[in-house]
């Protein structure tokens, strides 16, 4: 056990709409979606057709490059529709659920008696493989790769994020089982929030525990890796979210593909934000109780405010997400906004506004850009104030814009995913889409390195 790593740089965005710690509803969605789009690097091949009956854990989609990698149905029922987009791109498979929730039996197994290969085969077979994310680049994990470690963040610092102690504190045995399984493949590192004694996850064994303290993005696994064991060129690591780790544990403990999780419904536009219990692929329309009649005025985000996906009213909860954020679209114009000395209704991390006078206030934010796009003007330290990594974010972003592979490598493209620089994007007065710039840089690296 290492000492607590204190990260001084970062920012907790004070936004309204934190979910209160209670499960207000246990949902059984009538339709769930399996969306291959949220998994970077997966080339989907459809395995079912409309009208097919599937059980919870039945294969629905396979990867074209590696047919062993499967996406399976999160609920039992019949395939209702296959949704395709432009050029027949597979967007989603919709499954009409029955109320029986029947599972494919994968058979309970004790991971300690299995080899790394057998563990991998078991995870592949169940359809849980896509929850493993490979870095650099944040892509679908390669079953043949030998990662130097598997990293798990046991807490989330993103704005309004689900409290993992509340959502998963009761699932310690499953998480432990998951760690036991993954530890057969590579050493597992789990990062805890704050002092060890205060975390319920401190009881976990079979892994190396690390303790982090700080504001967002201290809970981002990428930031944690850069402090525990930075990724060198040629190395790979895998990361997995804590609720996916619990699902892997349940696979080995009960032989079931069970992705049911507590999801935080949050955001300044959410009515009485709280937790619900549901499956990934749940339609946003099923959260109607939280937004009432406001559907046309709000943005539906699967994930958090900084890096979540804008899925729209017709969208679905993503495979990796345990949070839904509802926020008003900021289409209103504000007369002479930028020159007003006081704008107490707006939050700014910059001292040229007076938000610092109200350290405990929570703001009702909206999606307004608050300005127009401009070239980068402020210096590195304007951005590194919110980035606790040994990286020059503006130089990295400019290298990505220029498509300069060598510079991108040197400035640390292997260590970051867009989400790690999300706060730089938030504070940027030039209103650049930094996450998108980094994502396009990563795409270029993938193309050039392939």
């Amino acid at each position, binding site marked *: 056990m290492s000492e607590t790593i204190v990260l001084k740089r970062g920012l907790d*965005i004070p936004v309204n709409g934190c979910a209160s710690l209670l499960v207000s509803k246990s949902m059984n969605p009538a339709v769930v979606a399996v969306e291959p789009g949220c998994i970077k690097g997966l080339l989907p091949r459809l395995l079912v057709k409309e009208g097919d009956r599937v059980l919870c854990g039945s294969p629905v989609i396979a990867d074209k490059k590696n047919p062993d990698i499967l996406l399976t149905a999160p609920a039992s029922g019949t395939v209702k529709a296959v949704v395709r987009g432009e050029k027949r791109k597979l967007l989603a498979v919709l499954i009409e659920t029955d109320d029986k929730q029947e599972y494919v039996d994968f058979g309970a197994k004790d991971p300690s008696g299995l080899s790394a290969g057998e563990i991998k085969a078991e995870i592949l077979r169940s359809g849980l493989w896509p929850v493993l994310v490979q870095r650099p680049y944040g892509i679908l994990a390669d079953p043949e790769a030998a990662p130097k470690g598997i990293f798990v963040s046991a807490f989330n610092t993103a704005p309004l994020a689900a409290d993992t102690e509340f959502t998963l504190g009761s699932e310690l045995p499953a998480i432990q089982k998951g760690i036991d399984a993954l530890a057969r493949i590579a050493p597992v590192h789990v990062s805890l929030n704050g002092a060890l004694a205060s975390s319920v996850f401190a009881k976990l064994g079979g892994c190396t525990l690390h303790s982090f303290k700080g504001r967002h993005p201290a809970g981002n696994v990428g930031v944690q890796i850069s402090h525990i064991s930075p990724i060198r060129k040629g190395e790979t690591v895998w990361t997995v979210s804590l609720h996916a780790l619990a699902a892997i544990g349940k696979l080995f403990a009960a032989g079931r593909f069970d992705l049911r999780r507590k999801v935080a419904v949050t955001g300044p536009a959410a009515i009485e934000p709280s937790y619900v219990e549901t499956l990934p692929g749940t339609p946003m329309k099923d959260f109607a109780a939280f937004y009432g009649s406001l559907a046309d005025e709000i943005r539906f985000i699967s994930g958090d405010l*900084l890096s979540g996906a804008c899925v729209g009213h017709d969208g679905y909860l993503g495979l990796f997400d345990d949070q839904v954020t509802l926020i008003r679209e*900021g289409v209103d114009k504000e007369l002479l906004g930028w020159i007003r000395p006081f704008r107490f209704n707006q939050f700014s991390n*910059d001292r040229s506004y007076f938000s610092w006078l109200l350290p405990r206030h929570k703001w009702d934010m909206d999606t307004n850009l608050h*300005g127009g796009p401009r070239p980068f003007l402020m210096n590195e330290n304007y951005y590194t104030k919110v980035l606790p990594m040994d990286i020059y974010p503006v130089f990295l972003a400019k290298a990505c814009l220029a498509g300069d592979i060598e510079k991108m490598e040197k400035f640390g493209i292997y260590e970051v995913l867009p989400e790690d620089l999300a706060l730089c*994007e*938030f504070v940027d007065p030039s209103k650049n889409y930094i*996450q998108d710039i980094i994502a396009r840089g990563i795409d270029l690296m993938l193309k050039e390195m392939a």
Partner: protein
Amino acid sequence: MNKIFEKGGKLYWLHSSVDAFETFLHVPGTVTLKGSHVRDAIDLKRLLILVVFAAAPAALFGMWNVGYQHGLAMGQTGVHILEYFWFGFLRVLPLYIVSYAVGLAIEFASSQIRGEEVSEGYLVSGFFIPLIVPVDIPLWMLAVAVAFAVIFGKEVFGGTGMNIWNPALLTRAFLFFSYPNYMSGSECWIAFKKGETAVADAFTGATPLALDGPAQYGTGFWDLFIGTVPGSVGETSVIAILLGACLLLWTGIASWKIMCGSIAGALLVGWIGNVAGVTEIPFYMQLLYGGFAFGTVFMATDPVTSCQTECGKWIYGLLIGMLCITVRLFNPGYAEGMMLAILLLNTFAPLIDHCVTSVHINRRAKKLNVA
């Protein structure tokens, strides 16, 4: 925005200008498209208007001082403070009109050509330019200089944020090298009406730096600190500039590292000059002379043209201070070195950054190898 200004519309060629006025009036209702769904309320308009606020004390004092110096030169006494100010205001106002009219016209036109929104960068440059030129400069000269600085110093590189040199200083440099007669000597820093010449015998009009040796003591510490001396409009009053510096440092727009580095560099070379017997000016007085204070606070700290890295900022600031005083002490032909020191270091800022980031890259590579 109205449809005719959109792409394909009849007045599309005006869209950047319309957009500029629209966003000037109100924060537009644009929403985030991807990535972070919420954004900080800060934008460049806000940051840059604060720089203008920070320079306002120096500008207001400068206007009063223009009147005051004119009064001294004409031997007037007992004139009301507001009369001095009004005289100066009327002399400086045309400079502002020319600076903004020429600069913004070019800025709007080039934004339109590039098809971008008009950037706020010239808001600040245009405010600084009248403050660093002699008040009596012919307006056509100013117009030519502004046009040169904005076109060749900024727009050819791609506009605000892409420029290598500070546009305001480039204006001054252009004037200095093209029209040296108007930029040096003992009377150019005083405003005269047509046909007027200095009447007060005891009056020394030159800036202290243009005088030789001990004559410089003719202007005392407090005169220089408060700024009741002849000079460019905005750069005489150290105390007004310090007020602006406080605002810039509090908001973090300007880097304290550049300011401290510059002051340290100036003191160091000034002190060496004292010890070596090159000059009799006490080293701390160097901070009060000429454009040093204004340059350090407002020009050297321009985030676009200064170093980007924190370590680089120390080096950059230090070299500016050292170079400025070196020019003052060792160059008999040209008494003030601040403008050229900053422009030279603007040129070298990317090189300094390159060295600093190379060290950073090597250190990272080593750390990764032992990790």
